[in-house]
């Protein structure tokens, strides 16, 4: 067993883990942060995408010990505080836009899709349709046909740009 320490969604945590434990299993089974999902065993689907020190990674391809000393951010830490009555107030623009543009159906790919999109927008704040599609090529959705995901990401990008300039 190996000791790991990291910050997950702003909370420090520390555990003895098997060296082979995948980061995604550490998040889901040890920390019980089940907002991040597993959709495959070949790193193709991207459902498990989280941020490791600010960059998106597929947490099924990272060992928990590799994340030792790092900051991990998942979809569960994305929303800020909200006013009474309307929790959507505190949502990240991507969460809002996936909701308003119907960028999700079953929602299983959504946490990974949102975290991948967040990384994309940090790199390219104003992507066109092709750039969004290519930027999300590591994340599979089986429900939406991607049209509304593309719309959601571009809607969120506009809101983030507006927020940055105001």
């Amino acid at each position, binding site marked *: 067993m190996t000791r790991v320490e990291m910050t997950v969604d702003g909370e420090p945590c520390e555990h003895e883990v*098997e060296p082979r*434990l995948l980061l995604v*299993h550490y998040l*889901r*089974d040890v920390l*019980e*942060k*089940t*907002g991040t*999902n*597993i*959709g*495959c*065993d*070949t790193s*193709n*689907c991207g*459902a498990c995408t989280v941020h490791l020190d600010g960059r998106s990674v597929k947490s099924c391809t990272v060992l928990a010990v590799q994340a030792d000393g790092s900051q991990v951010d*998942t*979809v*569960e830490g*994305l*929303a800020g505080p909200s006013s009474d009555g309307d*929790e*959507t107030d505190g*949502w990240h623009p991507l*969460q809002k836009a*996936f*909701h*308003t543009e*119907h960028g*999700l*159906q*079953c*929602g*299983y*790919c*959504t*946490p990974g899709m*949102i975290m991948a999109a967040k990384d994309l927008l940090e790199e390219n704040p104003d992507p066109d*349709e*092709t750039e*969004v*599609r*290519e930027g*999300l*090529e*590591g*994340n*599979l*959705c*089986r*429900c*939406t*046909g*991607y*049209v*509304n*995901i*593309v719309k959601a990401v571009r809607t969120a990008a506009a809101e983030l740009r507006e927020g940055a300039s105001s």
Partner: protein
Amino acid sequence: MTAVDTPTTSNVGTTKLRKEDAHLVTGRTQWTDNIQLTGMLHVAVVRSPMAHARVTKVDVSAALEQPGVVAAFSGADLADQWAGGLPCAWPVTEDMQSPTHLPIATDEVRHVGDAVAVVVADSRYGAADATEFIDVEYEPLTAVVDMEAALADGSPLTDTQLDTNRSFTWQKIDGDVDAAFGSAAHVVERRFINQRLIPTAIEPRAVVCAPPREHREYTMWSATQVPHILRLMLALTCGVPEHELRVIAPDVGGGFGSKLNVYAEEAICLVLAKRLGKPIKWTESRSEGYQATIHGRDQIQDVALAFNEDHTLRGMKVELHADMGAYLQLVTPGVPLLGAFMFNAIYKMDALSFTCHGVLTNKTPTDAYRGAGRPEATYAIERLMDEAANELGVEPFELRERNWIKHEEFPYTTVAGIEYDSGNYEAATAKAKELFDYDGLRAEQQRRREQGDKVQLGIGISTFTEMCGLAPSRVLGSLSYGAGGWEHASVRMLPSGKVEVITGTSPHGQGHVTSWSQIAADALGIPFEDIEVRHGDTAVAHKGMDTYGSRSLVVGGYAVQVACDKVVAKAKRVAAHLLEAAEDDLEFDAGTFQVKGSPDANTSMQDVALAIFAAHDYPEDMEPSLDSDATVDPENFSYPHGTHLCATEVDTETGAVTIRSYVAVDDVGTVINPQIVEGQVHGGLAQGIAQALYEEAVYDAEGQLKTGSLLDYFVPAAPDLPHFTTDRTETPATTNPLGVKGVGEAGTIASTPAVINAVVDALRPMGVNDVLMPASPQNVWNAIQAAAPADGGAA
């Protein structure tokens, strides 16, 4: 029952943002694999690496020595736990051959992935590790992979307990086919291959089963589309009384038919929970699922159309070979038979013969995958109409329009004997052609053909219909299906004026909570926000037939409407009593009961709900409750239709296909929530286009699955798909009060032939008349080479 006034519509037909989304976008989800229970054990399944073999030895003893391992069982160890094999609910013929399907094989394995042993440990990793210590010996038997060879005399058998690989031959003949073909001026014949697909819901299957605690009941959480069917079937399979089993479908991450089943692992978890007295969990890996979760499609289609001299369609012959795989799962044999009603599609004809050979092979079983029998039928007829247009020398739309049912001819009884209640193929087609710029693209195509462009433009048409709203129970009975097609809803009026709607449908992405809230809000005059929809738990929604076959809105939404109407009828009696008016003198609109002509004499639905809760003063001849149940059985299927147009750019040198534009005009009847409907069409298009261009489950001659993971099986990502232009026409169904027709499968059914017709159309001048699916660069290039004249010069 008192006639109910028509309430003001303010929710139905408008986009309401989904109530489902909040927990999904924030990660506060309850997928089955999220569930952790005290003392929970994990099960891992040892699976056959061989397609067909005798199991000569299973020794679990070494596994039992591994750290954390609690138990391990061979198939023989648990053989006495099953009351029967896993169920097939659709015995399509009396002499149908169905291999015995034990959840864990005992002495013969019949496909790669067949379970041979299980190991139970205190951790996910521990159980997986211990599978390596289970010693299984196999004596290989010949694998049967090719459907036609499987039916040849002397073929090896897929199952040594049977004497044939033919599960069934099912036939339906309508009209005088010999006369239609005998006197035809033109006959167009083709063989199409509808390849095997893997549904690939993004959430893998998972099961948790807890043994009884304070109650006597077992509780099972499963990533299933069908908690109600599952409960009944597990009771029959595992010997647990139905009333002592509760099944919960928590958040379920897509299904597309792959979770419309009763699987070995569900039975295994129940039996292990019973045997070990501990909660048991199993979660499939994607690669495991590709072997153990059903596949779809897989038909060889020999089809022919007969035409008169004037291009009037006379008749159709269909002979199918449908690959069942190694076992008959829940509805495996019934899937291709839905085609018996769909090959004729939107066209008028005098005769239709349909023959289906259900063939057993040593592969993963097939079963319902999005569309289930209708995409296969639609593919064949829409491909064949294009081939016929080419052979007859007419424009493909002209041939279709000459033969389709005109809007003034509805209701129309088809050659297959079912009545299409409504439709307007002319309107959908006109709209699609305009959005697509059909004439402009045809002109461009002509120019590029004349210029001999290396990249050719192709235009593909699909004018489709489907049968949804599964299904009238009497029809299911006549087709030997093991259950009815009704649906149930309950409406509970809470004293505070809030409402609970309980539905027997079991959504997994379709947005029932939102759409059912819209229906109930309008029917009851209660705000959308004040309605909660509960589903997917047999202890809450005690009665239901679940979600598949584009049935939920058509049958389940209908049940919600009827249950709400009953509430209103009861409330009206109470309101009349409270207002000291005659019931006939009351109007009900937008949640208010008002005495006609006396605006001040009124009361609200919420006030009535509170009054009946208090029950101090209510009509003597009724119970103090507004709560109502409805179980509705549809009188007919519903028949959504539409016109889809696809433009492809096809590189004649490399075979690469790019979709340039895609227009879908769908008529799904009345629309409850336009945004949700559009989303359903988008998703359907993606899966239908994926069949046309990308996906194929490939087995080698030994029955090994070569596309065994997402590395090898091409599920399209965002860059692989185009933007879709969608629009609608709205011809309400006449067979349910909402006028709805169903939308879940439309895009999948329509799009596959639209894309392939476009690819073939691009290459038609080169002599190409068909392209195998998926139309990968290799398959397209091969088609071009095969069509090229011997001197190598293309047209």
